[in-house]
């Protein structure tokens, strides 16, 4: 199989990741629930993951909260900062992991920046909206549909200047682009462990510049006599048993990213993107959504071919891509593809030029 669906989840992981998961299953009990060797092994394992994340994302270890995925982290952040009727500014490219909790909460949403790959327009739109002092800004770093890299550092600076809390969705940027809690001053940054960090599914990280309100209430192995959740992080936002095995794997995934360097991984993915565009340049029926500010995600529309049928045809040839709305209808509304959806190709550190070439050849054969 040629796997080009890493924006959903990275399928190929470094060998050290499953090895670490297996070792943890054989040696680790639960964190903060005992003093025996297996409990302390679990505690060390999880703490090592916190330290690794804190170094990669410029935060203190206690500011690293482990979640099930980015959606869990975003819900925690959104429900921590906002109440019904609050005003919030989002970009035109947010995922349902942002728009659905905002909808459930009943906040007043203003969309800033709907022009695909136009960073200047995006920034001007955010500047106008942030000047109105909303209760919060929620912004994706990279669009999961189009790979558009939003000007998050500049948006963060605007938020800082106006003292507006910022939540960053780093689902598609963690592992390839700089993500820093300290530099951005963001209140929260959410990311999955299983995409660009090459960890197992069931892992995620929420970087917390603030304490936050728990979404989940339960045992933390601390302050057990008190019925309120602890005031301090990470315990406040980590009720229940940790996914110790998953976090063991996530540590190795992050170690891989650090060793390869996020910059090098991004360069590799962007080079595959450029190769794909070059090889399919003559295919007039293939419409690329592309721009200068683009990470390793590429959406296309194929004339007279439904994107789901195109994806199915590719799947039958052993190529895994994703089609449809990608859980981000807002992004499609902004780009004008809400009626058709798109076929999305997304790369990882493990994809090769040979795979891109085979994909291009197949596209020419299947979609002449």
């Amino acid at each position: 199989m040629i796997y080009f669906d890493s924006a959903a989840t990275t399928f190929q992981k470094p060998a050290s990741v499953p090895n670490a998961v297996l070792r943890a299953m054989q040696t680790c009990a639960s964190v903060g629930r005992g003093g025996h060797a297996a409990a302390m092994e679990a505690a060390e394992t999880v703490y090592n993951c916190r330290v690794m994340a804190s170094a990669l994302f410029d935060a203190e270890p206690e500011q690293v909260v482990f979640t099930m995925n980015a959606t869990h982290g975003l819900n925690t952040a959104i429900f921590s900062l906002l109440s019904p009727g609050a005003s919030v500014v989002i970009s035109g490219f947010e995922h349902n992991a942002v728009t659905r909790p905002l909808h459930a909460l009943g906040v007043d949403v203003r969309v800033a920046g709907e022009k695909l790959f136009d960073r200047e327009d995006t920034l001007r739109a955010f500047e106008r909206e942030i000047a109105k002092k909303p209760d919060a800004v929620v912004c994706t770093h990279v669009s999961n549909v189009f790979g558009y890299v939003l000007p998050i550092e500049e948006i963060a600076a605007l938020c800082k200047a106006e003292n507006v809390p910022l939540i960053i969705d780093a689902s598609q940027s963690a592992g390839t682009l700089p993500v820093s809690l300290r530099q951005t001053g963001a209140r929260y940054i959410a990311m999955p462990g299983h995409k660009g960090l090459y960890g197992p599914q069931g892992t995620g990280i929420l970087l917390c510049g603030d304490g936050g309100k728990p979404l989940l209430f339960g045992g933390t192995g601390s302050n057990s006599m008190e019925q309120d959740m602890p005031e301090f992080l990470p315990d406040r936002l980590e009720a229940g048993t940790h996914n110790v095995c998953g976090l063991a794997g996530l540590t190795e995934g992050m170690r891989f990213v650090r060793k390869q360097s996020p910059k090098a991984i991004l360069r590799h993915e962007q080079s595959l993107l450029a190769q794909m565009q070059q090889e399919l340049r003559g295919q007039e029926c293939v419409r690329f959504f592309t721009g200068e500010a683009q990470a390793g995600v590429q959406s296309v529309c194929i004339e007279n071919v439904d994107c789901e049928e195109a994806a199915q045809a590719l799947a039958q040839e052993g190529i895994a891509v994703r089609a449809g709305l990608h859980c981000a209808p807002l992004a499609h509304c902004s780009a004008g593809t809400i009626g058709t959806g798109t076929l999305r190709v997304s790369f990882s550190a493990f994809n090769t030029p040979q795979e891109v070439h085979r994909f291009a050849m197949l596209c020419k054969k299947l979609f002449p």
Partner: protein
Amino acid sequence: MYDYYFTFRSVTAALSAQRALERAGVSSLTVRTPRELRQKGCGYSLRIREELLADARRALQAASVPYQKVYRKTDRGSWQEVVT
């Protein structure tokens, strides 16, 4: 010879402290906080030998790692809080 116990609010805080002590060359043992010292239920402590107490305090202060309290166990088996 006394053993001293630095108590912490969580296992994360205890491990954070232990790493700071390791960097400073101070050995310690992570243990469950003894029943008599538990303030709000479960907890973790670092057990440190008497001769390392001053170094431990200095290292934790230098690393800005907070702890709750410091106790020592007397010969009679009772606990005394050690106030700085």
